[in-house]
Protein backbone atom coordinates (compact mmCIF):
# COMPACT_ATOMS: atom_id res chain seq x y z
CA UNK A 1 0.00 0.00 0.00
CA UNK A 2 1.34 3.42 -0.94
CA UNK A 3 2.23 5.53 2.06
CA UNK A 4 1.08 9.07 1.29
CA UNK A 5 2.66 10.41 4.48
CA UNK A 6 6.20 9.86 3.21
CA UNK A 7 7.55 12.88 1.36
CA UNK A 8 9.75 12.80 -1.71
CA UNK A 9 13.20 14.04 -0.77
CA UNK A 10 14.34 17.13 -2.63
CA UNK A 11 17.28 19.51 -2.77
CA UNK A 12 17.24 23.26 -2.35
CA UNK A 13 19.01 24.33 -5.53
CA UNK A 14 18.88 28.07 -5.14
CA UNK A 15 17.89 30.68 -2.58
CA UNK A 16 17.08 34.24 -3.52
CA UNK A 17 15.95 37.12 -1.33
CA UNK A 18 12.62 38.30 -2.73
CA UNK A 19 11.69 41.09 -0.37
CA UNK A 20 12.99 42.23 2.97
CA UNK A 21 11.39 39.20 4.62
CA UNK A 22 10.59 36.66 1.89
CA UNK A 23 12.84 34.28 0.01
CA UNK A 24 12.34 32.23 -3.12
CA UNK A 25 13.63 28.67 -2.92
CA UNK A 26 14.25 26.61 -6.03
CA UNK A 27 13.49 23.01 -5.15
CA UNK A 28 14.43 19.97 -7.17
CA UNK A 29 13.00 16.51 -6.49
CA UNK A 30 15.83 14.00 -6.11
CA UNK A 31 14.04 11.40 -8.20
CA UNK A 32 13.67 13.45 -11.33
CA UNK A 33 9.98 12.80 -11.66
CA UNK A 34 6.94 14.62 -12.99
CA UNK A 35 5.75 17.46 -10.81
CA UNK A 36 2.14 17.61 -11.96
CA UNK A 37 1.13 20.98 -10.66
CA UNK A 38 -1.93 23.04 -11.49
CA UNK A 39 -2.37 26.75 -10.77
CA UNK A 40 -3.38 27.31 -7.15
CA UNK A 41 -2.56 23.90 -5.67
CA UNK A 42 -0.26 23.58 -2.66
CA UNK A 43 2.53 21.33 -1.46
CA UNK A 44 3.50 20.16 2.03
CA UNK A 45 7.17 20.84 2.70
CA UNK A 46 9.04 18.83 5.32
CA UNK A 47 11.89 20.14 7.39
CA UNK A 48 12.81 16.85 9.00
CA UNK A 49 12.82 17.27 12.75
CA UNK A 50 11.02 20.59 12.55
CA UNK A 51 7.73 19.59 10.97
CA UNK A 52 5.81 20.22 7.84
CA UNK A 53 4.06 23.26 6.43
CA UNK A 54 1.73 23.92 3.48
CA UNK A 55 3.10 26.26 0.83
CA UNK A 56 1.93 27.44 -2.55
CA UNK A 57 4.15 27.09 -5.60
CA UNK A 58 5.23 30.34 -7.22
CA UNK A 59 6.76 28.87 -10.35
CA UNK A 60 7.31 25.48 -11.99
CA UNK A 61 10.70 25.55 -13.69
CA UNK A 62 10.97 22.04 -15.10
CA UNK A 63 7.72 20.10 -14.58
CA UNK A 64 9.08 16.85 -16.03
CA UNK A 65 12.09 16.84 -13.75
CA UNK A 66 10.34 18.10 -10.67
CA UNK A 67 11.94 21.53 -10.32
CA UNK A 68 9.78 24.30 -8.89
CA UNK A 69 9.94 27.40 -6.73
CA UNK A 70 8.23 28.46 -3.56
CA UNK A 71 8.25 31.94 -2.07
CA UNK A 72 7.78 32.07 1.69
CA UNK A 73 8.57 34.13 4.72
CA UNK A 74 9.28 33.03 8.27
CA UNK A 75 6.09 32.54 10.21
CA UNK A 76 6.46 29.39 12.29
CA UNK A 77 8.80 26.63 13.39
CA UNK A 78 9.23 24.93 10.03
CA UNK A 79 9.61 28.11 7.97
CA UNK A 80 12.12 29.42 10.52
CA UNK A 81 14.21 26.31 9.91
CA UNK A 82 13.84 26.67 6.14
CA UNK A 83 15.19 30.21 6.29
CA UNK A 84 18.35 28.95 8.02
CA UNK A 85 19.14 26.27 5.44
CA UNK A 86 21.93 26.65 2.90
CA UNK A 87 21.82 25.63 -0.77
CA UNK A 88 21.90 21.83 -1.34
CA UNK A 89 20.08 21.02 1.90
CA UNK A 90 17.64 18.13 1.82
CA UNK A 91 13.97 18.78 2.47
CA UNK A 92 10.80 16.74 1.79
CA UNK A 93 7.91 17.41 -0.55
CA UNK A 94 4.40 15.94 -0.52
CA UNK A 95 1.74 16.84 -3.01
CA UNK A 96 0.62 18.81 -4.93
CA UNK A 97 -2.68 18.83 -3.06
CA UNK A 98 -6.00 20.57 -3.58
CA UNK A 99 -8.06 21.75 -6.51
CA UNK A 100 -6.42 24.90 -7.91
CA UNK A 101 -7.82 27.74 -10.01
CA UNK A 102 -9.91 26.52 -12.94
CA UNK A 103 -8.00 28.70 -15.43
CA UNK A 104 -9.27 26.70 -18.42
CA UNK A 105 -12.85 27.44 -17.48
CA UNK A 106 -11.99 31.16 -17.50
CA UNK A 107 -10.82 31.19 -21.14
CA UNK A 108 -12.21 34.00 -23.32
CA UNK A 109 -12.95 36.04 -20.20
CA UNK A 110 -11.20 39.05 -18.72
CA UNK A 111 -9.16 38.22 -15.64
CA UNK A 112 -8.77 40.43 -12.60
CA UNK A 113 -6.07 39.28 -10.21
CA UNK A 114 -6.04 40.88 -6.77
CA UNK A 115 -3.15 40.05 -4.46
CA UNK A 116 -2.15 41.24 -1.03
CA UNK A 117 1.34 40.84 0.43
CA UNK A 118 2.52 37.21 0.28
CA UNK A 119 -0.68 36.43 -1.62
CA UNK A 120 1.13 37.14 -4.87
CA UNK A 121 3.22 34.00 -4.35
CA UNK A 122 0.53 31.53 -5.53
CA UNK A 123 -0.74 34.04 -8.08
CA UNK A 124 2.67 34.36 -9.74
CA UNK A 125 2.26 30.97 -11.34
CA UNK A 126 -1.25 31.96 -12.46
CA UNK A 127 0.19 35.09 -14.08
CA UNK A 128 2.87 33.03 -15.82
CA UNK A 129 0.21 30.61 -17.06
CA UNK A 130 -1.94 33.47 -18.36
CA UNK A 131 1.03 35.05 -20.13
CA UNK A 132 1.92 31.74 -21.76
CA UNK A 133 -1.67 31.36 -22.94
CA UNK A 134 -2.25 35.05 -23.42
CA UNK A 135 -4.33 34.80 -26.63
CA UNK A 136 -6.97 32.71 -24.89
CA UNK A 137 -7.91 35.47 -22.49
CA UNK A 138 -9.32 38.98 -22.72
CA UNK A 139 -7.91 41.81 -20.66
CA UNK A 140 -5.73 40.72 -17.73
CA UNK A 141 -5.21 43.07 -14.82
CA UNK A 142 -3.21 42.59 -11.66
CA UNK A 143 -3.81 44.71 -8.59
CA UNK A 144 -1.14 44.17 -6.00
CA UNK A 145 -0.76 45.78 -2.63
CA UNK A 146 1.68 45.40 0.24
CA UNK A 147 2.43 47.14 3.50
CA UNK A 148 5.55 48.86 2.17
CA UNK A 149 7.65 48.85 -1.03
CA UNK A 150 10.28 46.58 0.53
CA UNK A 151 7.60 43.96 1.11
CA UNK A 152 6.55 43.73 -2.55
CA UNK A 153 7.35 40.34 -4.06
CA UNK A 154 8.88 39.73 -7.49
CA UNK A 155 9.72 43.40 -7.99
CA UNK A 156 11.99 42.73 -10.96
CA UNK A 157 9.65 40.34 -12.70
CA UNK A 158 6.62 42.56 -12.10
CA UNK A 159 7.90 45.08 -14.64
CA UNK A 160 8.66 42.39 -17.21
CA UNK A 161 5.12 41.01 -16.97
CA UNK A 162 3.79 44.33 -18.16
CA UNK A 163 5.90 44.33 -21.30
CA UNK A 164 5.10 40.84 -22.52
CA UNK A 165 3.55 40.62 -25.97
CA UNK A 166 1.78 43.21 -28.04
CA UNK A 167 0.12 46.17 -26.47
CA UNK A 168 -3.43 44.84 -26.52
CA UNK A 169 -2.33 41.50 -25.14
CA UNK A 170 -0.29 42.83 -22.29
CA UNK A 171 -0.92 42.66 -18.60
CA UNK A 172 -1.92 45.73 -16.70
CA UNK A 173 -0.20 45.93 -13.32
CA UNK A 174 -1.21 48.37 -10.61
CA UNK A 175 0.65 48.62 -7.33
CA UNK A 176 -0.14 50.15 -3.98
CA UNK A 177 1.45 50.26 -0.54
CA UNK A 178 0.24 51.39 2.87
CA UNK A 179 3.50 53.14 3.77
CA UNK A 180 5.51 54.54 0.82
CA UNK A 181 9.24 55.27 0.77
CA UNK A 182 10.98 58.17 -0.99
CA UNK A 183 11.11 56.79 -4.49
CA UNK A 184 7.59 55.37 -4.54
CA UNK A 185 5.68 56.42 -7.67
CA UNK A 186 2.61 54.26 -7.39
CA UNK A 187 -0.52 54.52 -5.36
CA UNK A 188 -0.69 54.77 -1.57
CA UNK A 189 -3.62 53.03 0.10
CA UNK A 190 -5.41 49.73 0.17
CA UNK A 191 -5.60 47.28 -2.68
CA UNK A 192 -9.40 47.44 -2.65
CA UNK A 193 -9.27 51.16 -3.44
CA UNK A 194 -7.58 50.37 -6.75
CA UNK A 195 -10.70 48.53 -7.86
CA UNK A 196 -12.33 51.95 -8.15
CA UNK A 197 -9.41 53.21 -10.28
CA UNK A 198 -9.82 50.76 -13.11
CA UNK A 199 -12.41 50.09 -15.76
CA UNK A 200 -14.19 46.82 -15.20
CA UNK A 201 -16.65 44.74 -17.13
CA UNK A 202 -18.00 42.67 -14.22
CA UNK A 203 -20.18 40.36 -16.28
CA UNK A 204 -17.30 39.20 -18.48
CA UNK A 205 -14.55 39.17 -15.83
CA UNK A 206 -13.38 36.44 -13.47
CA UNK A 207 -11.64 37.57 -10.31
CA UNK A 208 -8.81 35.67 -8.64
CA UNK A 209 -8.01 36.77 -5.10
CA UNK A 210 -5.29 35.79 -2.69
CA UNK A 211 -4.04 37.63 0.34
CA UNK A 212 -4.56 38.16 4.06
CA UNK A 213 -7.96 37.17 5.39
CA UNK A 214 -9.40 40.65 5.82
CA UNK A 215 -8.05 41.79 2.46
CA UNK A 216 -9.92 38.91 0.80
CA UNK A 217 -13.07 39.85 2.67
CA UNK A 218 -12.85 43.51 1.68
CA UNK A 219 -12.04 42.66 -1.93
CA UNK A 220 -14.90 40.19 -2.22
CA UNK A 221 -17.36 42.67 -0.77
CA UNK A 222 -16.15 45.34 -3.18
CA UNK A 223 -16.37 43.06 -6.21
CA UNK A 224 -19.87 41.92 -5.28
CA UNK A 225 -20.85 45.60 -5.03
CA UNK A 226 -19.39 46.19 -8.49
CA UNK A 227 -21.65 43.47 -9.84
CA UNK A 228 -19.31 40.48 -10.09
CA UNK A 229 -21.09 37.12 -10.09
CA UNK A 230 -20.71 35.10 -6.90
CA UNK A 231 -19.43 32.22 -8.98
CA UNK A 232 -16.83 34.41 -10.72
CA UNK A 233 -14.94 35.41 -7.59
CA UNK A 234 -12.26 32.80 -6.93
CA UNK A 235 -10.42 32.90 -3.63
CA UNK A 236 -7.50 30.86 -2.37
CA UNK A 237 -7.99 30.15 1.32
CA UNK A 238 -5.41 29.50 3.97
CA UNK A 239 -6.07 27.08 6.80
CA UNK A 240 -3.95 24.84 8.98
CA UNK A 241 -3.58 21.95 6.50
CA UNK A 242 -1.59 19.23 8.25
CA UNK A 243 -2.19 15.97 6.40
CA UNK A 244 -3.36 17.53 3.12
CA UNK A 245 -5.61 14.52 2.53
CA UNK A 246 -8.84 15.36 4.32
CA UNK A 247 -8.24 13.23 7.41
CA UNK A 248 -6.64 15.32 10.14
CA UNK A 249 -9.54 17.78 10.44
CA UNK A 250 -7.51 20.96 10.91
CA UNK A 251 -8.45 22.83 7.74
CA UNK A 252 -12.22 22.55 7.90
CA UNK A 253 -14.17 25.61 6.86
CA UNK A 254 -17.72 24.59 7.64
CA UNK A 255 -18.11 21.15 6.08
CA UNK A 256 -15.51 21.84 3.42
CA UNK A 257 -11.91 20.83 3.87
CA UNK A 258 -9.57 23.43 2.41
CA UNK A 259 -7.02 20.73 1.55
CA UNK A 260 -9.41 18.61 -0.53
CA UNK A 261 -12.38 20.67 -1.69
CA UNK A 262 -10.14 23.78 -1.71
CA UNK A 263 -7.92 25.70 -1.32
CA UNK A 264 -9.69 27.56 -4.14
CA UNK A 265 -13.37 28.31 -3.68
CA UNK A 266 -15.74 30.65 -5.45
CA UNK A 267 -17.63 32.97 -3.16
CA UNK A 268 -20.79 31.12 -4.16
CA UNK A 269 -19.38 27.84 -2.86
CA UNK A 270 -18.63 29.21 0.59
CA UNK A 271 -21.13 32.01 1.14
CA UNK A 272 -23.43 29.75 3.19
CA UNK A 273 -20.60 28.61 5.47
CA UNK A 274 -21.88 28.82 9.02
CA UNK A 275 -18.64 29.63 10.79
CA UNK A 276 -16.26 32.54 10.18
CA UNK A 277 -14.79 32.56 6.68
CA UNK A 278 -12.44 35.52 6.92
Amino acid at each position, binding site marked *: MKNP*YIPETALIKDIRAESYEAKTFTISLKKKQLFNYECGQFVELSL*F*GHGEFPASVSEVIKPKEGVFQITVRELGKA*TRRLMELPVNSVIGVRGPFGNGFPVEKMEKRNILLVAGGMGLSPLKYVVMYLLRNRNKYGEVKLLYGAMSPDRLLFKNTLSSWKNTGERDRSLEVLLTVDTPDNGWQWRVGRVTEMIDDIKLAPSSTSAIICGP*SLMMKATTTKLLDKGFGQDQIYMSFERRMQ*CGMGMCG*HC*MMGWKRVCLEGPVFTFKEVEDTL*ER*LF
Partner: protein
Amino acid sequence: MEKVLEKSSLPAFFDDLQKKARVVGAVRKGGITAHAYLSFGFAEKLEDIVLDYKTTTVAPKKLFIPDSEALFSFKRKDGDIILGNLASKPDEKRVLLGIHPCDITALSRLDKVFDEVYRDPYYKNKRENTIVVGLTCSEPAHLCFCKSVGSGPDLNKGFDLLMTDIGRSYFVKVGSKSGEKLTKKTYFREATQADKSKRIAVIERLEQQLRSSFSIDGLIETMRRRYNDKAWDSYSNRCVTCGICNMVCPTCHCFAVLDKTNADQTEGKRVRVWDSCHFERFSRMAGGLDLRESKASRFKHRLYDKFDYTPARYGDVFCVGCGRCIKFCQSEIDLRDALRTLQEGALSEKPLHT
Protein backbone atom coordinates in the same frame (compact mmCIF):
# COMPACT_ATOMS: atom_id res chain seq x y z
CA MET B 1 -27.13 -16.59 7.34
CA GLU B 2 -28.02 -17.24 10.97
CA LYS B 3 -26.39 -19.63 13.42
CA VAL B 4 -26.52 -20.46 17.10
CA LEU B 5 -23.61 -20.96 19.48
CA GLU B 6 -24.29 -22.60 22.86
CA LYS B 7 -22.73 -20.65 25.72
CA SER B 8 -21.00 -23.84 26.82
CA SER B 9 -19.11 -23.80 23.51
CA LEU B 10 -17.86 -20.24 23.96
CA PRO B 11 -14.45 -21.36 25.33
CA ALA B 12 -13.94 -23.61 22.30
CA PHE B 13 -14.90 -20.74 19.99
CA PHE B 14 -12.48 -18.43 21.83
CA ASP B 15 -9.67 -20.98 21.46
CA ASP B 16 -10.31 -21.29 17.75
CA LEU B 17 -10.31 -17.51 17.35
CA GLN B 18 -7.04 -17.32 19.22
CA LYS B 19 -5.46 -19.79 16.81
CA LYS B 20 -6.23 -17.40 13.96
CA ALA B 21 -5.46 -14.07 15.55
CA ARG B 22 -4.95 -12.11 18.74
CA VAL B 23 -8.25 -11.62 20.49
CA VAL B 24 -9.21 -8.12 21.59
CA GLY B 25 -12.12 -7.47 23.88
CA ALA B 26 -13.41 -5.28 26.68
CA VAL B 27 -10.92 -5.94 29.47
CA ARG B 28 -10.57 -4.53 32.99
CA LYS B 29 -7.82 -1.98 33.47
CA GLY B 30 -6.68 0.04 36.45
CA GLY B 31 -6.44 -2.89 38.90
CA ILE B 32 -8.87 -3.56 41.73
CA THR B 33 -9.28 0.09 42.59
CA ALA B 34 -11.98 2.69 42.48
CA HIS B 35 -10.36 3.82 39.24
CA ALA B 36 -10.87 0.52 37.48
CA TYR B 37 -12.34 0.91 34.04
CA LEU B 38 -13.11 -1.06 30.91
CA SER B 39 -11.12 -0.64 27.77
CA PHE B 40 -10.42 -2.63 24.64
CA GLY B 41 -7.27 -4.66 25.06
CA PHE B 42 -5.69 -8.00 24.30
CA ALA B 43 -7.16 -11.03 26.04
CA GLU B 44 -5.09 -14.11 26.77
CA LYS B 45 -8.04 -16.17 27.95
CA LEU B 46 -11.81 -15.95 27.74
CA GLU B 47 -12.11 -14.89 31.39
CA ASP B 48 -10.16 -11.71 30.60
CA ILE B 49 -13.01 -10.48 28.47
CA VAL B 50 -16.09 -8.85 29.96
CA LEU B 51 -19.05 -9.72 27.76
CA ASP B 52 -21.97 -8.20 29.68
CA TYR B 53 -20.52 -4.70 29.82
CA LYS B 54 -22.46 -1.56 28.98
CA THR B 55 -19.84 0.78 27.50
CA THR B 56 -16.08 0.99 27.65
CA THR B 57 -14.24 4.17 28.62
CA VAL B 58 -12.18 4.45 25.45
CA ALA B 59 -13.79 3.55 22.15
CA PRO B 60 -12.29 0.85 19.93
CA LYS B 61 -11.03 3.53 17.52
CA LYS B 62 -7.77 3.44 19.47
CA LEU B 63 -7.08 0.02 17.98
CA PHE B 64 -7.10 1.55 14.49
CA ILE B 65 -5.87 5.08 15.18
CA PRO B 66 -3.65 4.80 18.27
CA ASP B 67 -3.36 7.96 20.38
CA SER B 68 0.19 8.25 19.09
CA GLU B 69 1.44 6.62 15.92
CA ALA B 70 4.67 6.97 13.96
CA LEU B 71 4.16 7.64 10.24
CA PHE B 72 7.74 7.31 9.01
CA SER B 73 11.27 7.56 10.29
CA PHE B 74 14.10 9.79 9.12
CA LYS B 75 17.80 9.64 9.62
CA ARG B 76 20.54 12.05 8.63
CA LYS B 77 23.49 10.43 6.90
CA ASP B 78 26.34 12.20 5.11
CA GLY B 79 24.28 15.28 4.37
CA ASP B 80 21.39 13.20 3.08
CA ILE B 81 18.14 12.05 4.68
CA ILE B 82 17.12 8.38 4.72
CA LEU B 83 13.40 7.78 5.11
CA GLY B 84 11.89 4.60 6.52
CA ASN B 85 8.40 3.40 5.63
CA LEU B 86 6.72 2.14 8.78
CA ALA B 87 3.60 0.96 6.96
CA SER B 88 5.33 -1.61 4.79
CA LYS B 89 4.47 -4.65 6.89
CA PRO B 90 0.89 -5.90 7.26
CA ASP B 91 -0.42 -5.61 10.78
CA GLU B 92 -0.95 -8.60 13.04
CA LYS B 93 -4.29 -10.32 12.68
CA ARG B 94 -6.82 -9.41 15.34
CA VAL B 95 -10.33 -10.40 16.32
CA LEU B 96 -12.49 -7.83 18.04
CA LEU B 97 -14.75 -9.90 20.26
CA GLY B 98 -17.83 -8.40 21.92
CA ILE B 99 -17.87 -4.96 20.30
CA HIS B 100 -21.28 -3.29 20.45
CA PRO B 101 -23.35 -2.09 17.46
CA CYS B 102 -22.67 1.61 18.17
CA ASP B 103 -18.91 1.06 18.09
CA ILE B 104 -19.19 -1.14 14.98
CA THR B 105 -21.11 1.67 13.28
CA ALA B 106 -18.38 4.10 14.33
CA LEU B 107 -15.80 1.96 12.54
CA SER B 108 -17.92 1.94 9.39
CA ARG B 109 -18.03 5.72 9.61
CA LEU B 110 -14.25 6.00 10.05
CA ASP B 111 -13.75 3.75 7.01
CA LYS B 112 -15.12 6.57 4.89
CA VAL B 113 -12.73 9.15 6.30
CA PHE B 114 -9.57 7.08 5.92
CA ASP B 115 -10.32 5.78 2.44
CA GLU B 116 -11.81 8.67 0.57
CA VAL B 117 -9.66 10.53 -1.93
CA TYR B 118 -6.51 9.26 -0.24
CA ARG B 119 -6.06 5.92 1.47
CA ASP B 120 -4.46 5.88 4.91
CA PRO B 121 -2.22 2.78 4.94
CA TYR B 122 -2.00 2.62 8.74
CA TYR B 123 -5.72 2.61 9.30
CA LYS B 124 -6.52 0.35 6.34
CA ASN B 125 -3.82 -2.14 7.30
CA LYS B 126 -5.24 -2.58 10.77
CA ARG B 127 -8.81 -2.58 9.58
CA GLU B 128 -8.25 -5.21 6.89
CA ASN B 129 -6.50 -7.47 9.38
CA THR B 130 -9.27 -7.29 11.96
CA ILE B 131 -12.25 -9.62 12.21
CA VAL B 132 -15.25 -8.05 13.93
CA VAL B 133 -17.29 -10.37 16.13
CA GLY B 134 -19.92 -8.03 17.50
CA LEU B 135 -22.31 -8.47 20.37
CA THR B 136 -25.65 -6.75 20.84
CA CYS B 137 -26.03 -5.20 24.29
CA SER B 138 -27.67 -7.14 27.09
CA GLU B 139 -28.89 -3.90 28.61
CA PRO B 140 -28.37 -0.30 27.50
CA ALA B 141 -26.59 2.18 29.77
CA HIS B 142 -28.66 5.13 30.95
CA LEU B 143 -26.97 7.54 28.52
CA CYS B 144 -27.28 5.33 25.43
CA PHE B 145 -29.26 6.66 22.48
CA CYS B 146 -28.17 4.49 19.55
CA LYS B 147 -31.79 4.08 18.47
CA SER B 148 -32.06 7.85 17.91
CA VAL B 149 -29.13 7.93 15.47
CA GLY B 150 -29.74 4.59 13.75
CA SER B 151 -26.72 2.70 15.03
CA GLY B 152 -28.47 0.19 17.29
CA PRO B 153 -29.66 -1.76 19.13
CA ASP B 154 -29.57 -4.07 16.08
CA LEU B 155 -27.30 -3.85 13.07
CA ASN B 156 -27.30 -5.25 9.53
CA LYS B 157 -23.79 -4.52 8.35
CA GLY B 158 -20.29 -3.63 9.46
CA PHE B 159 -19.48 -6.92 11.21
CA ASP B 160 -18.25 -10.40 10.33
CA LEU B 161 -20.39 -11.95 13.05
CA LEU B 162 -22.93 -10.38 15.37
CA MET B 163 -23.89 -12.32 18.49
CA THR B 164 -26.99 -11.82 20.60
CA ASP B 165 -27.49 -13.33 24.03
CA ILE B 166 -30.72 -15.35 23.85
CA GLY B 167 -30.45 -17.09 27.22
CA ARG B 168 -28.51 -20.31 27.14
CA SER B 169 -26.96 -19.57 23.79
CA TYR B 170 -25.86 -16.83 21.41
CA PHE B 171 -27.75 -16.13 18.24
CA VAL B 172 -25.13 -15.38 15.56
CA LYS B 173 -25.81 -13.25 12.49
CA VAL B 174 -23.24 -13.79 9.73
CA GLY B 175 -22.16 -10.61 7.96
CA SER B 176 -19.28 -11.63 5.71
CA LYS B 177 -17.38 -14.48 4.05
CA SER B 178 -14.72 -14.56 6.76
CA GLY B 179 -17.49 -14.58 9.35
CA GLU B 180 -19.08 -17.51 7.59
CA LYS B 181 -15.80 -19.42 7.73
CA LEU B 182 -15.70 -19.03 11.52
CA THR B 183 -19.15 -20.66 11.81
CA LYS B 184 -18.05 -23.81 9.93
CA LYS B 185 -17.09 -25.37 13.27
CA THR B 186 -19.30 -28.14 14.61
CA TYR B 187 -20.31 -26.23 17.72
CA PHE B 188 -22.34 -23.85 15.56
CA ARG B 189 -25.80 -25.02 14.58
CA GLU B 190 -28.44 -23.56 12.29
CA ALA B 191 -30.83 -21.16 13.98
CA THR B 192 -34.38 -22.44 14.42
CA GLN B 193 -37.58 -20.44 14.31
CA ALA B 194 -37.61 -20.51 18.13
CA ASP B 195 -34.11 -18.99 18.23
CA LYS B 196 -35.17 -16.27 15.82
CA SER B 197 -38.21 -15.38 17.93
CA LYS B 198 -36.02 -15.21 21.02
CA ARG B 199 -33.67 -12.79 19.26
CA ILE B 200 -36.53 -10.60 18.08
CA ALA B 201 -37.79 -10.46 21.68
CA VAL B 202 -34.37 -9.38 22.94
CA ILE B 203 -34.08 -6.59 20.37
CA GLU B 204 -37.63 -5.44 21.10
CA ARG B 205 -36.87 -5.29 24.82
CA LEU B 206 -33.72 -3.24 24.11
CA GLU B 207 -35.67 -0.86 21.93
CA GLN B 208 -38.11 -0.30 24.75
CA GLN B 209 -35.31 0.26 27.23
CA LEU B 210 -33.69 2.87 24.99
CA ARG B 211 -35.93 5.66 26.13
CA SER B 212 -34.13 8.76 24.90
CA SER B 213 -36.61 11.04 23.14
CA PHE B 214 -33.76 12.67 21.22
CA SER B 215 -34.50 12.72 17.50
CA ILE B 216 -32.43 13.82 14.53
CA ASP B 217 -35.47 14.38 12.31
CA GLY B 218 -35.10 17.80 10.71
CA LEU B 219 -32.05 18.47 12.86
CA ILE B 220 -29.79 19.56 9.99
CA GLU B 221 -32.28 22.21 8.88
CA THR B 222 -32.66 23.47 12.44
CA MET B 223 -28.90 23.60 12.96
CA ARG B 224 -28.32 25.40 9.66
CA ARG B 225 -30.93 27.98 10.62
CA ARG B 226 -29.80 28.47 14.19
CA TYR B 227 -26.02 28.54 14.07
CA ASN B 228 -26.02 31.98 15.70
CA ASP B 229 -28.83 31.24 18.13
CA LYS B 230 -28.31 32.37 21.72
CA ALA B 231 -29.55 28.97 22.86
CA TRP B 232 -26.02 27.69 22.23
CA ASP B 233 -24.52 30.01 24.82
CA SER B 234 -25.74 28.24 27.95
CA TYR B 235 -23.96 25.11 26.73
CA SER B 236 -20.82 26.52 25.14
CA ASN B 237 -20.22 28.82 28.14
CA ARG B 238 -20.00 25.78 30.39
CA CYS B 239 -17.47 24.00 28.18
CA VAL B 240 -13.95 24.05 29.66
CA THR B 241 -12.37 22.94 26.33
CA CYS B 242 -10.73 19.93 27.96
CA GLY B 243 -11.25 17.82 24.85
CA ILE B 244 -12.40 14.69 26.68
CA CYS B 245 -15.45 14.40 24.40
CA ASN B 246 -13.08 14.10 21.45
CA MET B 247 -10.87 11.56 23.18
CA VAL B 248 -13.66 9.19 24.17
CA CYS B 249 -15.74 9.68 21.01
CA PRO B 250 -15.69 6.60 18.76
CA THR B 251 -15.76 8.70 15.57
CA CYS B 252 -13.54 11.67 16.49
CA HIS B 253 -10.46 11.11 14.36
CA CYS B 254 -8.66 14.47 14.12
CA PHE B 255 -4.94 14.26 14.61
CA ALA B 256 -1.96 16.58 14.82
CA VAL B 257 1.26 15.80 12.97
CA LEU B 258 4.60 16.49 14.64
CA ASP B 259 8.25 15.47 14.50
CA LYS B 260 9.96 13.69 17.38
CA THR B 261 13.73 13.55 17.30
CA ASN B 262 16.64 12.41 19.40
CA ALA B 263 18.67 15.05 21.27
CA ASP B 264 21.09 15.91 18.45
CA GLN B 265 18.35 15.69 15.81
CA THR B 266 20.19 13.14 13.71
CA GLU B 267 17.19 10.85 13.60
CA GLY B 268 13.56 10.89 14.46
CA LYS B 269 10.04 10.04 13.50
CA ARG B 270 7.05 11.92 12.19
CA VAL B 271 4.20 11.11 14.53
CA ARG B 272 0.50 11.74 14.57
CA VAL B 273 -1.30 12.17 17.87
CA TRP B 274 -4.97 12.61 18.73
CA ASP B 275 -6.03 16.22 18.62
CA SER B 276 -9.14 18.03 19.79
CA CYS B 277 -11.08 20.70 17.91
CA HIS B 278 -11.84 22.23 21.31
CA PHE B 279 -8.19 23.10 21.87
CA GLU B 280 -7.27 26.71 21.37
CA ARG B 281 -4.56 26.24 18.79
CA PHE B 282 -6.40 23.60 16.75
CA SER B 283 -7.23 25.85 13.81
CA ARG B 284 -4.67 28.58 14.43
CA MET B 285 -2.60 29.32 11.34
CA ALA B 286 1.01 30.37 10.94
CA GLY B 287 1.12 34.01 11.90
CA GLY B 288 -1.49 33.60 14.60
CA LEU B 289 -4.82 34.09 12.85
CA ASP B 290 -7.44 31.71 14.26
CA LEU B 291 -10.87 31.82 12.71
CA ARG B 292 -12.27 29.56 15.42
CA GLU B 293 -10.86 31.69 18.19
CA SER B 294 -14.01 31.84 20.30
CA LYS B 295 -14.77 28.93 22.57
CA ALA B 296 -18.36 28.91 21.35
CA SER B 297 -17.27 28.43 17.75
CA ARG B 298 -15.11 25.45 18.74
CA PHE B 299 -17.89 23.95 20.85
CA LYS B 300 -20.30 24.24 17.96
CA HIS B 301 -17.80 22.89 15.47
CA ARG B 302 -17.77 19.44 17.04
CA LEU B 303 -21.54 19.13 17.08
CA TYR B 304 -21.95 20.60 13.58
CA ASP B 305 -19.32 18.19 12.35
CA LYS B 306 -21.19 15.20 13.76
CA PHE B 307 -24.72 16.23 12.80
CA ASP B 308 -24.40 18.55 9.79
CA TYR B 309 -20.99 18.50 8.04
CA THR B 310 -20.44 14.75 7.91
CA PRO B 311 -24.01 13.98 6.78
CA ALA B 312 -23.48 16.60 4.04
CA ARG B 313 -20.29 14.85 2.98
CA TYR B 314 -20.88 11.16 3.61
CA GLY B 315 -24.65 10.92 4.08
CA ASP B 316 -24.34 9.65 7.65
CA VAL B 317 -24.57 11.24 11.07
CA PHE B 318 -21.21 10.72 12.77
CA CYS B 319 -22.71 10.44 16.26
CA VAL B 320 -23.43 6.82 17.11
CA GLY B 321 -25.24 7.45 20.39
CA CYS B 322 -22.77 5.71 22.72
CA GLY B 323 -23.17 8.45 25.38
CA ARG B 324 -19.46 8.57 26.23
CA CYS B 325 -19.05 12.32 25.70
CA ILE B 326 -22.01 12.94 28.03
CA LYS B 327 -20.72 10.55 30.65
CA PHE B 328 -17.22 12.01 30.81
CA CYS B 329 -17.99 15.70 30.38
CA GLN B 330 -16.93 17.41 33.59
CA SER B 331 -19.32 20.27 32.88
CA GLU B 332 -22.15 17.79 32.49
CA ILE B 333 -23.00 18.98 29.01
CA ASP B 334 -25.45 16.65 27.31
CA LEU B 335 -25.34 17.13 23.55
CA ARG B 336 -28.91 15.85 23.34
CA ASP B 337 -30.06 18.66 25.63
CA ALA B 338 -28.17 21.23 23.60
CA LEU B 339 -29.63 20.03 20.33
CA ARG B 340 -33.10 19.59 21.81
CA THR B 341 -33.02 23.15 23.14
CA LEU B 342 -32.13 24.24 19.64
CA GLN B 343 -34.97 22.19 18.17
CA GLU B 344 -37.50 23.56 20.62
CA GLY B 345 -36.09 27.00 21.41
CA ALA B 346 -37.32 30.34 20.16
CA LEU B 347 -35.41 31.97 17.35
CA SER B 348 -32.97 34.68 18.27
CA GLU B 349 -30.73 35.01 15.29
CA LYS B 350 -27.87 37.24 14.38
CA PRO B 351 -26.92 37.53 10.69
CA LEU B 352 -24.11 35.36 9.32
CA HIS B 353 -20.49 36.52 9.19
CA THR B 354 -20.59 39.37 11.66
